[in-house]
């Protein structure tokens, strides 16, 4: 079955080009040129992934991202002409899993899409623990005591990666490779922002983390 991808971009030429590339690689693109209608199209088409331009008429891409994220865990990849730190971070904080700065290569775009669409490893029944948080890998469940914690797939992958090797300190590059699927060095801000988001969900006190610890100058590791 072809994965359906919603492309939200107001530039028709670019959207068409993206469509050509995606179709070429076996995806099924759906288009939307207006931010205001993006949510309706999203609900109607039920895509497996959203490619979202940040600068949109009608509604800001960041707002669209927030609304989509509010009702779905579908992976969102931003397309951005601005690589300013603040814009990228704002986009990631509003719920995007990854971003591709313009101008991008077709291969780069496809790689990012594929990485987010990974069906997930064949998950054997497995239960992991970090601090007082329990992770049911196969059931995609995270809980503290009886309370369920809701995570996006990306945040879940990030937590599992850390929890599988609690003795290891993960550099940001290593996490980019394992969780995001980057083979080459990419923007480590992705990791920073997602770790912040993960912490805000699973830590009792995000200011004093116990589950995801920072190792100064190196990266992150799981709490004990």
């Amino acid at each position: 079955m072809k994965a359906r991808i919603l492309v939200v971009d107001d530039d028709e030429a670019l959207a068409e080009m993206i469509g050509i590339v995606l179709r070429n690689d076996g995806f099924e693109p759906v288009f939307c040129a207006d931010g205001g209608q993006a949510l309706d199209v999203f609900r109607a088409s039920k895509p497996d992934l959203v490619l979202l331009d940040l600068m949109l008429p009608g509604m800001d891409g960041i707002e669209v991202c927030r609304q989509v994220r509010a009702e779905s865990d579908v992976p969102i990849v931003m397309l951005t002409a601005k690589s300013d730190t603040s814009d990228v971070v704002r986009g990631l904080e509003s719920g995007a899993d990854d971003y591709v700065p313009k101008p991008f290569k077709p291969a780069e775009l496809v790689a990012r899409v594929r990485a987010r669409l990974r069906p997930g490893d064949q998950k054997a029944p497995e239960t992991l623990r970090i601090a007082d948080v329990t992770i049911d890998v196969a059931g995609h469940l995270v809980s503290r005591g009886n309370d369920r914690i809701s995570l996006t797939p990306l945040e879940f992958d990030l937590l599992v990666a850390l929890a599988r090797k609690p003795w290891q300190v993960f550099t940001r590059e290593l996490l980019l490779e394992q969780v995001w699927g980057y083979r080459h060095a990419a923007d480590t801000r992705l990791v920073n922002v997602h770790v912040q988001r993960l912490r805000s969900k699973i830590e009792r006190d995000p200011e004093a983390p116990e589950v995801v610890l920072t190792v100064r100058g190196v990266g992150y590791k799981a709490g004990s």
Partner: protein
Amino acid sequence: MVSAIKQVPEPADRGVRQAIATDTTQAIATDTAPDRPDTVPDMTPDRAPAESSAASTAKSTAEPSAPRGPGKPPAGGGPGLWRGYAFRTRLWAKRARIVGVRVARLVRTGMQRLLPGIRYLLRAVHRKWRRSLQFRTVLTTLLLAIGSFAVVGAYLSNQIANNLFQERLAQAESETRYNVKQVQDTFDGAQVTDQSSVITLVYDTLNAVEGRGSVIQRRYVFEAMPEQTKPRNRWVESRASDQLTIGVIPPELRKAVQDSGKDQYWASTQFPVGTEDRPGIAVGNKVTFNGTVYELYLIYDLNTAQKTLDEIQNVLLAGGALLVLMIGGVAWYVTRNVVSPVSHAAVVSEKLAAGQLQERMVVKGEDEVARLGASFNHMAASLQEQITQLATLSQMQQRFVSDVSHELRTPLTTVRMAAEVLYDARGDFDPINKRSAELLYNQVERFQSLLADLLEISRFDAGAATLDAEPTDIVQLVAHVIEGVAPVAAEYGSAVTLNAPAGSVVVDMDDRRIDRILRNLILNALEHGEGRPVNVSVAASDTAVAVAVRDHGIGMAPAEAARVFDRFWRADPARARTTGGSGLGLSIAAEDTKLHDGWLQAWGSKGHGSNFLLTLPLRRDEPITKSPLQLEPVNVGLPVAGSQRTVVLLDPPRTGEAPASASGARGTMADGFTEDFAEDFTGDFTGDGGSGAVGGATAEGGSAGHRETGMEGRA
């Protein structure tokens, strides 16, 4: 100054010493004793015999040689006075010395505690002196005024004291002459019958000398001459007024009286009255009673004169102090009027320089200062106008560039994707279309990197670049970058080596930017390295870390090194753009470094390669004072291509002795290839530049000694 104020003459003689000895300051009395021989030659009686004969005959006319004793014949007025000053001076010097010692002790004990405070005060005064024209002027005026008043006061005080003394002396001398004559007349006319009546007569006569009334006008000392040729009159003994002894008479005066005939001499002295010592004049002569010669000294009190003088001096002092203060005040007021507009101008111009362009001077009146203020304001206004114009212009320009870059990105993305699709399908095209697709693809690529750099630069220009710093291991980052450029290095046939003895250095930095800087530097080194190795060294100190990228290629002249960070600047415009760099790489690197408060320096030498040194502060709040690495390599003058060179490897056991051998080797090694070089640049340099040889040497070097050389030998 002290002597000038306290100059009523006092004797420096034994009498004084005794008198002072009864005083509390015994130390002074004993201290003065050794000084006495100095004064003796100057004392009155020594000169008295010589002058007295002339004086007695010539009476009051013969005074040209004695300026201070205008009225009276007896010599010694001047020297006596002088002696008084000298004594007073010494006395005060001694007292001052004792007070000084005590104060010094006090100061010394207090110093330890007060020293920082005093130093601070001194520094503050010094700073004020340097920085405040007004302070300097007022202080100078005050000092000069004090000096002038000291001189004038000394002169006035001296004159007054002199006149007072001379007046009293003249009076004393004439009174003495009269009284001695009276006594002598009484003695001459006395009937020497029995002892008691004689004694009564003599003593009554002498008591009469003291004067009538309750106030003693003069005191006397009546003493038999020690060596009498005739048998002494045993009936009349030596005698003196209350509390007095012969001791109050200076011996020099006695000697002069004894040695002369019937001449009258005087000397300054000090005598006890009650519990205090009073300054006085002793005038001596001889009287004869019944054939026995007696010395008769009359002592006149100078106390009232001294008091008058003290009062005058106090008034002088108070008046002088007041005047000095007033002069200080006047100087302060006047200089303030002149200086305050100037300092106001200084403050305003400082603010202007700091960017507060709306600052203006306050203009009042039409004088020179007002003209200065008006023209200053005029200047500031035109300056502000210019700067605002420029700022608006550059802001507009920056926004334009930024907008253009953004607007270009979306279509560029489409073009790029299309180009890539065509490029991927080029196998199906005929040769012309195929080549076109390739050119399109490559040039779009280049266009895109140029645009990215342009956007980056415009972001710096707009001040929109922010630092996203966090602690990161720079050695790991350098290794990462070297790994990343390996394909390019292989293309050039250069080995990129890493020498990082520190192993791991955690720096507060924005790793994206540092990554970009290092990538730029290393790619630049590879591009200009002529296939020779590129050495990357990392070193750290307590506050800074340095990364040096050294190539041994074509190098550049110092003038070129200075311009290398300029935008779109190329050392040799004719040189082929092999890597397709935008010409903005090093400019962006410089901006990135600036954002980190770091240093980026370039060194080059024609034919000897170049060296780029990046220095970053370890922590954001600590500025760099010195780079841990040196910009100019130690071994510049190495032979370049063609010559045989030894590969010097640095293995761990030898690192300890490396500095010694290096310094020895610098001058002696025949091929000039010292271990310094090896130490600086990982020691895997081969002359013949073939990639195989380089790789081999590198591999050996890596295995031989370096902890952090994992990235070597990728050529």
